[in-house]
């Protein structure tokens, strides 16, 4: 009998796992109670949620859920499949057999994968801050801090650049112990929480600067922006009336802020002052009324849920730390509870216009802003007449704060179950955004009724949807209705409208499926954007990777190239057209992209029902003879209408991942880049003279630029790796920072490029010995720019063992390209002759080896001369490679060096690709400068330029106008700061309008001088 019941419950569980009810595919709702615990009847309210930004398949959640077996550790909810399935893992100390923990929230570090829970222990009520290095392992979390306090609210981020790069910054807002001043709003902060032993640098500070009526409210919320801006929000209690049990509180809603420093200073979060009283902390709303008591028999309630003045939320736009959203609750009339949503575009300084939303009869507000700048607002509203009231859980979204969508995620009973502690929903829930998607959690009555979930729902616990009853894990009977936590995910772009370019393809069945962020460690080699020299139908190899050609530079048709892309969408859908925009950048890391070609962006038509299209004809673009042909190629796509645009900022003028606020290519599936330099090399033992033939003399070298695309000086870390079999085949590879000694290639090592100034370039050189791979085999070495353990960008330099004839032809083409470049840049007739000579020989269908030998003999001297000329003034010295002058390997290495030197000289004259970065740097320096004359105009015009540029509405053509408009402001600043260097460089700007490059160079000189002046004023070491 038992077995038959068990079988029945399994069948019903299977039915429950199927989505119940009609719903939209882009909204997923899951009752998180695991199947094993189908018989549980606890009220698992007040939930919270964390999503690992580095791996959104990893989620952790919390609620008032006890360890099901009553063990000593309280559980968290764990999902490793993006929220589809959940387990309970017991790892929090102090399990209370009824509630697990008391208040609990949790967050992941930005890149570390480390989970930071903040709890009130279930056994002692002590406030604990914890760390779980592997939240799936079920090992007890490490205790970092334990003391008193209420409602710990955790936020965390990983520093992606600048000082402390890679460290986890964790902020725990809580209401601290009562002190005579009544200033209890507290934030406890660690600037390096991931690895340091307890207390991991945690230290509390108060964020209240005014007097209170005895304390602040319990809810202390924080929001962190990747640029280091930290916001805090709290209720300041100013008066209390009534009582003795139920009191009416008068409160202000106060916003505090720290600017770009991760709240690391001695007086953190004091940057925003109120214009009224001059105190730190902007009074966004004053004199608000709140009901409050701690007497559970008298709790003011909405439905069966208590109202305890804990309802605040705060979110900052990840694209722009100036834009901040807040929500709070108060009592507008005599018995209501009303939510208010407001937005500031000025870092909280001003709050113009009406409220974005005002919702009456609702509680538990939660805000989040996704990578697109779209704000989400989650709340729960009481509806219906007494006796049959409902809790409706709404998610509203808006791009502008005026027009809102409204999705009801759940419409569940507010009457059942009957609770005796007024903790029906709890004092909070949570909403967050990772990339474009919103994730959230809420508590609701768990009756399995299809109509309760307008977008469908999945129950992991056993349920009979026909009868509308819950079933036990096994055996007969039904289970009473209780409160469960419900997870939801809103895929912002419906799958049939979500177009993407693969970041990687490993094989026919293993490729990027449009995840954000994509998870492959090599996202810059096998992507679906590539170049061809002929506008012919694209081909794909056996691994389903596009067959790409090197880019070619030159005058006329010689410099003609064709960019291609293959585009997928997540699900077949109606006919649609996708716009593609191609860009290129110098080869390396941190280099800014610029538009490839002036032709209109191509459109790729998807017929109805199709989910993949490849461009049949390439996008024509031309590479001038002055440009190096060692480039990165990028693409960003936009779906039809407004359904699936790329996420601003555009790659134009930007480098993926920098300066700290730029979205990584991996985080936006509308963007992809190919960033690999392939060096054909001779095969070990094959002949005598092939480039890359045996021995050092046959080695070949590749160069790459490392560019500091941030707006502050920093140390750049480049980690390089290769598969063990590749290392073995490469044999004797070396890596060097140009100007420093070469070091043997050891996979996993890191190069530290210290104190790089904004816009500064340094060069890496990798030298391969004699590869022993198969013919045509690509032997890549990967270089990744690291922020802690997160790779934010990368490139690859690969050896490709090739037949001698192929190597020699490649080298001859490089000879043509490099001398063509030199001729175009310097006007050298000798260089033009060299280029023509190579072009002539390349015109032969077959080139006998002896012709190469002759060419080398006759043109080797010109190469030596060209190198000597190019090195002049750059600080480069000849590399000390042991070698055999006159050999093809030597020839190839010298050509690569000459190409690099030409780029060095070119960039030294200014870089139009860096114009956007220069303006961003200007904005950030002027923010630092504060009240410098002209700052207001500089900040205003910079913001306008940056906004237009990142949306691709403005380009470099607008740059001279910007600088011209600000010349007066520059001069004013130079005079006010009494800096001759500033005055000199400001004057230099006026004569820099001869070209975009010259203007950018002059502008950069001015900003370097300004940075030095500000550093000196701040007592910092001036930049070297």
């Amino acid at each position, binding site marked *: 009998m*038992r*077995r038959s019941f*068990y079988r029945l419950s399994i069948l019903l569980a299977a039915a429950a796992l199927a989505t119940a009810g009609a719903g939209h595919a882009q909204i997923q709702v899951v009752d998180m109670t*695991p*199947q*094993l*615990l*189908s*018989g*549980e009847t606890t009220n698992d309210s007040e939930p919270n949620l964390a999503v690992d930004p580095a791996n959104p398949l990893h989620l952790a959640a919390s609620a*008032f859920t006890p360890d*099901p*077996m*009553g*063990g000593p550790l309280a*559980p968290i909810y*764990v999902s*490793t499949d993006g929220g589809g*399935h*959940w*387990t*309970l*893992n*017991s790892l929090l100390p102090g399990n*209370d*057999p*009824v*509630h697990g923990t*008391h208040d609990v929230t949790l967050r992941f570090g930005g890149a570390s994968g480390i989970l930071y829970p903040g709890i*009130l222990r279930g056994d*002692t*009520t*002590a406030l604990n801050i914890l760390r779980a290095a592997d939240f*799936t*392992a*079920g090992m007890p979390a490490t205790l970092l801090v334990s003391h008193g306090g*209420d409602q710990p609210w955790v936020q965390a981020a990983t520093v992606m650049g600048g000082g402390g790069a890679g460290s986890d910054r964790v902020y725990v807002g809580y209401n601290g112990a009562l002190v005579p001043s009544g200033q209890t709003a507290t934030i406890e902060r660690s600037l390096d929480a991931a690895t340091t032993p307890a207390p991991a640098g945690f230290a509390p500070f108060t964020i209240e600067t005014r007097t209170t009526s*005895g*304390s602040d409210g*319990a809810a202390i919320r924080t929001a962190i922006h990747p640029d280091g801006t930290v916001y805090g929000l709290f209720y300041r209690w100013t008066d*209390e009336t009534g*009582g*003795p*049990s139920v*009191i009416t509180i008068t409160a202000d809603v106060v916003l505090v802020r720290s600017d770009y420093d991760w709240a690391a200073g001695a007086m953190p979060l004091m940057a925003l002052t109120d214009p009224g009283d001059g105190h730190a902390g902007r009074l966004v709303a004053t004199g608000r009324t709140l009901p*409050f008591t*701690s*007497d*559970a028999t008298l709790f003011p309630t909405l439905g069966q849920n*208590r109202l*305890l003045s*804990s309802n605040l939320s705060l979110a900052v736009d990840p694209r722009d730390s100036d834009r901040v959203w807040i929500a709070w609750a108060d009592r507008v009339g005599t018995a209501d509870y009303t939510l208010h949503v407001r937005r500031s575009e000025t870092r909280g300084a001003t709050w113009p216009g009406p409220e974005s939303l005002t919702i009456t009869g609702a509680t538990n507000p939660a805000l989040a802003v996704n990578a697109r700048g779209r704000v989400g607002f989650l709340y729960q509203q009481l509806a219906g007449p007494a006796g049959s009231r409902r809790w409706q859980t709404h998610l509203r979204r808006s791009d502008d704060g005026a027009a809102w969508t409204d999705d009801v995620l759940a419409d569940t009973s507010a009457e059942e179950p009957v609770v*005796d*502690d*007024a*903790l029906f929903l709890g*004092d909070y829930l949570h909403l967050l955004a990772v990339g474009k998607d919103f994730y959230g959690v809420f508590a609701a009555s768990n009756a399995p009724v299809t109509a309760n979930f307008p977008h469908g729902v999945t129950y992991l616990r056993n349920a009979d949807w026909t009868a509308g009853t819950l079933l*036990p894990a*096994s*055996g007969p009977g039904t289970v009473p209705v209780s409160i469960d936590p419900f997870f939801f995910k809103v895929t912002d772009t419906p799958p049939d409208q979500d177009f993407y370019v693969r970041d990687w393809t490993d094989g026919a069945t293993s490729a990027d499926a449009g995840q954000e962020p994509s998870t492959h460690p090599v996202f810059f080699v096998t992507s679906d954007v590539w170049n061809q020299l002929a506008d012919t139908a694209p081909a794909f190899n056996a691994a389903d990777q596009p067959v790409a050609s090197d880019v070619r530079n030159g005058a006329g048709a010689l410099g003609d190239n064709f960019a291609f892309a293959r585009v997928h969408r997540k699900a077949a859908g109606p006919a649609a057209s996708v716009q593609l925009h191609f860009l290129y950048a110098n080869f390396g890391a941190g280099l800014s992209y610029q538009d490839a070609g002036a032709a209109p962006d191509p459109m790729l038509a998807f017929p109805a029902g199709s989910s993949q299209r490849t461009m049949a004809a390439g996008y024509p673009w031309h590479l001038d003879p002055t440009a190096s042909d060692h480039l990165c190629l990028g693409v960003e796509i936009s779906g039809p209408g407004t359904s699936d645009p790329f996420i601003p900022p555009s790659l134009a003028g930007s480098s993926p991942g920098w300066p700290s606020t730029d979205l990584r290519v991996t985080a936006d599936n509308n963007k992809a880049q190919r960033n690999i330099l392939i060096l054909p090399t001779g095969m070990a033992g094959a002949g005598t003279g092939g480039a890359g033939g045996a021995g050092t003399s046959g080695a070949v070298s590749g160069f790459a630029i490392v560019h500091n695309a941030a707006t502050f000086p920093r140390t750049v870390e480049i980690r390089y790796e290769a598969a063990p079999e590749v290392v073995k085949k490469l044999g004797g590879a070396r890596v060097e920072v140009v100007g420093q000694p070469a070091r043997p290639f050891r996979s996993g090592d890191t190069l530290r490029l210290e104190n790089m100034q904004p816009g500064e370039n340094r060069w890496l050189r990798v030298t391969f010995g004699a590869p022993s791979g198969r013919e045509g085999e690509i032997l890549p070495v990967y270089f990744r720019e690291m922020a802690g353990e997160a790779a934010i960008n990368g490139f690859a330099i690969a050896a490709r063992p090739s037949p001698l004839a192929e190597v020699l032809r490649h080298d001859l083409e490089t000879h043509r390209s490099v001398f063509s470049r030199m001729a175009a840049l310097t006007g050298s007739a000798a260089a033009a002759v060299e280029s023509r000579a190579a072009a002539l020989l390349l015109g032969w269908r077959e080139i006998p080896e002896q012709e190469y030998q002759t060419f080398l003999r006759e043109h080797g001297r010109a190469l030596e001369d060209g190198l000597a000329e190019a090195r002049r003034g750059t600080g480069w010295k000849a590399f000390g490679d042991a070698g055999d002058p006159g050999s093809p390997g030597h020839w190839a290495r010298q050509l690569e060096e000459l190409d690099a030197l030409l780029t060095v000289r070119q960039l030294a004259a200014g870089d139009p690709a860096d114009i956007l970065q220069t303006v961003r740097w200007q904005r950030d320096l002027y923010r630092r400068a504060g009240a410098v004359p002209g700052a207001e105009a500089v900040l205003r015009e910079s913001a306008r330029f940056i906004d237009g540029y990142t949306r691709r509405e403005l380009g470099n053509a607008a740059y001279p106008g910007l600088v011209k408009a600000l010349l007066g402001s520059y001069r004013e600043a130079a005079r006010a700061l009494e800096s001759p260097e500033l005055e000199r460089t400001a004057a230099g700007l006026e004569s820099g309008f001869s070209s975009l490059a010259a203007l950018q160079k002059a502008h950069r000189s001015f900003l370097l001088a300004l940075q030095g002046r500000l550093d000196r004023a701040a007592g910092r070491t001036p930049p070297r």
Partner: protein
Amino acid sequence: VSALPFFKVAAFSRKESGMQRTVRSLSLRGLFLSGVLLAGGVRLPDAAAAPLDLRQAVRNSQLVFRGTIKRLGAAAMAGVPVSASTAVVSVDEVISAPAPVGDLTGREITVALRQPMREGRQAVFFATGWIYGTGLAVREVDRLEGGQTTAELRKAVADAARRNEEADLAERLARAELVAVGRVVRTVDVSREGHRPRSEHDPDLFHALLQVETVLKGAAPPGGELSFLFAGSRDVAWRRAPKPQEGQAGVWILFRDERPGLRVDGLTAFDPRDVQPLERAGTVRRLLASPPRP
């Protein structure tokens, strides 16, 4: 009388599959007869191995079951980190289990083994919860191998649990300032005397006036009455604290300064164990007179 013929308790270490294994075996029948188990703890004849302390095993575990190792280095459900110490174990019989996990009999669960064990071997596992999903994963706390019957095991485990509970109560009684049998005659809300509420986690203190019948420990109050404080709050922080009602009779176990960080002036009863039903007065007396070993 020698118990040895029945007292088939053995602990030994031996090599098995190249790994050091520790196996304990005992006849619970023998233990009952010998009374050793009832005295708490079992001293095994082989001093080289740690003795099984059944009470400790029961104290540290929530699930006791007889199971057979099916697969080593494996897990019975997704989401469990598999390692060399995880095993899929079939639950042959449940000895003791909390209700929320339902009847596990016949199911395969994952056990993180404390000591290596060979596939196909059966044992009684003492385990604590680890991961709950479509199935169950537990961490082994201790293990018994032997031929004892299910009824014997259930009785022994229940008895150990009862003794643990009594030991805990005895420890609490030892720390208490006053233990009395009496009846609550009045409760008074004193939560707002001198302060306004600051947090939903405030205890909302009440005074209970207790008419004392018998003082079991401590000084008798003058006039036969005393008052103590209790937490009226039903917030999560205090929900499990005693909520004495007027007219409620019982054994009251009262403390001073029982909660760190909470400054109260007077006797308090904050722990769920601080009020015991009248019918346990005898037990309380016994435990005060002759405390069991911890």
